[in-house]
């Protein structure tokens, strides 16, 4: 067992559920803004997703990252909030695992570490959504690829910076 990857204490488990719900609520908030600004690209939503996927892993490691992702997707499905939630389920789980695997190799003290980890997560997650777009909505693959790449790119940069600063603030607060 690698301590940088795993953590199964009660604090991490309960935290994963609660932050998973926080993620859901923030996804809803950003989703509503996207619906007006960029209904097909979902830049804000994608960034929010990437940010949480990374932050939860930094806060509580695994399996908390996976649990939070499942909580977010399942509640989104149960409440009928997002039709794509079924694909979020895979994106959430895979994205979280990828983040863990990359973050394990770094000290996560530099911005570049955060950007690299986020790149892996954003690409994985958007790949899942892309498959959904092509398979379920029969979207042309070139269009799906373009939209997913753009979301992944923005997500990597913005979410990378955000996870670093928010995680730093959390550490400073000594709440973790």
């Amino acid at each position, binding site marked *: 067992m690698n301590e940088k990857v795993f953590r199964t204490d009660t604090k991490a488990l309960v935290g994963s559920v609660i932050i998973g719900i926080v993620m859901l609520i923030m996804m809803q908030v950003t989703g509503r803004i996207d619906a007006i600004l960029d209904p097909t690209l979902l830049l804000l939503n994608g960034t929010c997703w990437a940010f949480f996927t990374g932050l939860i892993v930094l*806060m509580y490691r695994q399996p908390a990252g996976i649990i939070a992702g499942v909580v977010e997707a399942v509640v989104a499905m149960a409440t009928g909030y997002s039709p794509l939630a079924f694909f979020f389920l895979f994106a959430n789980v895979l994205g979280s695992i990828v983040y863990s695997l990359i973050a394990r190799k770094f000290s996560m003290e530099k911005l570049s570490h955060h950007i690299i980890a986020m790149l892996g997560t954003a690409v994985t997650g958007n790949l899942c959504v892309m498959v959904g777009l092509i398979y379920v909505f029969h979207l042309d693959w070139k269009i799906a690829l373009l939209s997913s790449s753009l979301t992944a790119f923005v997500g990597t940069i913005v979410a990378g910076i955000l996870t670093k600063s928010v995680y730093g603030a959390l550490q400073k607060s000594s709440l973790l």
Partner: protein
Amino acid sequence: MELSKLDPRTKLAWYALMIYFSLSSGTAVQLGLVLVVGIMASFILTRSLKQYKVMIMILLLLGLQILIVQLIFCREGVLLYQWGILKIYSEALPLAITGILKASIIVFASMQFFTSASPQEFTLMLMKFKVPYRFAMLVGLGVRFLPLLKAEYVSIIDSQCTRGLKMETIRDKIKAIIPTFMPFLYRSVRRATETALAMELRGYGRSKARTFSSALAIKHYDIALISAMLLVIILSLASKILPLIYSII
């Protein structure tokens, strides 16, 4: 026989069946049939479809989106109409319709499954799948905290608004994300820490087993139903894969 009296594992098999059909069926007629059967099942077992009302609007919006995207980008079939760079092909509409139907089945089936049993039943089901209770019991925790956290976020927005934060235009709303999200995050972490401590001091995870106030007992008709559904999936898969194998041989 009510839906809630079925074993959650039977419901899970049903969910798997619906998802399988939504992904494997190709024509609008097949997909439509699957959706109707799913809705009928809900109606027969619970006598009410009220809970699905929320998804209608969302699906309509999504449908419109898919339709527009297909009309603009679809390049299959024959060219029907051209205006400048906008070209509409004959396959756009059928593709949009099957897309909407597939999405509808997935949304409907997911909602049907995840609202069909109590959190405790899901916990017990997970434990039947050998998930340790420390993990399985998190289901109930999620359901318990969802409304609390929602209400809390509203209070946080109110609180920041009285300090002069504006929430009117889209620009305002984007700017408001951080000042409303950070208190929410801090509060939630604090809450998680306290809840976990309270749980642990009441013996959470002390040993591998735990007494629950109810248990799952799978009944004969559950076993029959699960077997039948699995059989359908296997047969259907076989009918698709076997010809492929033969053709290779």
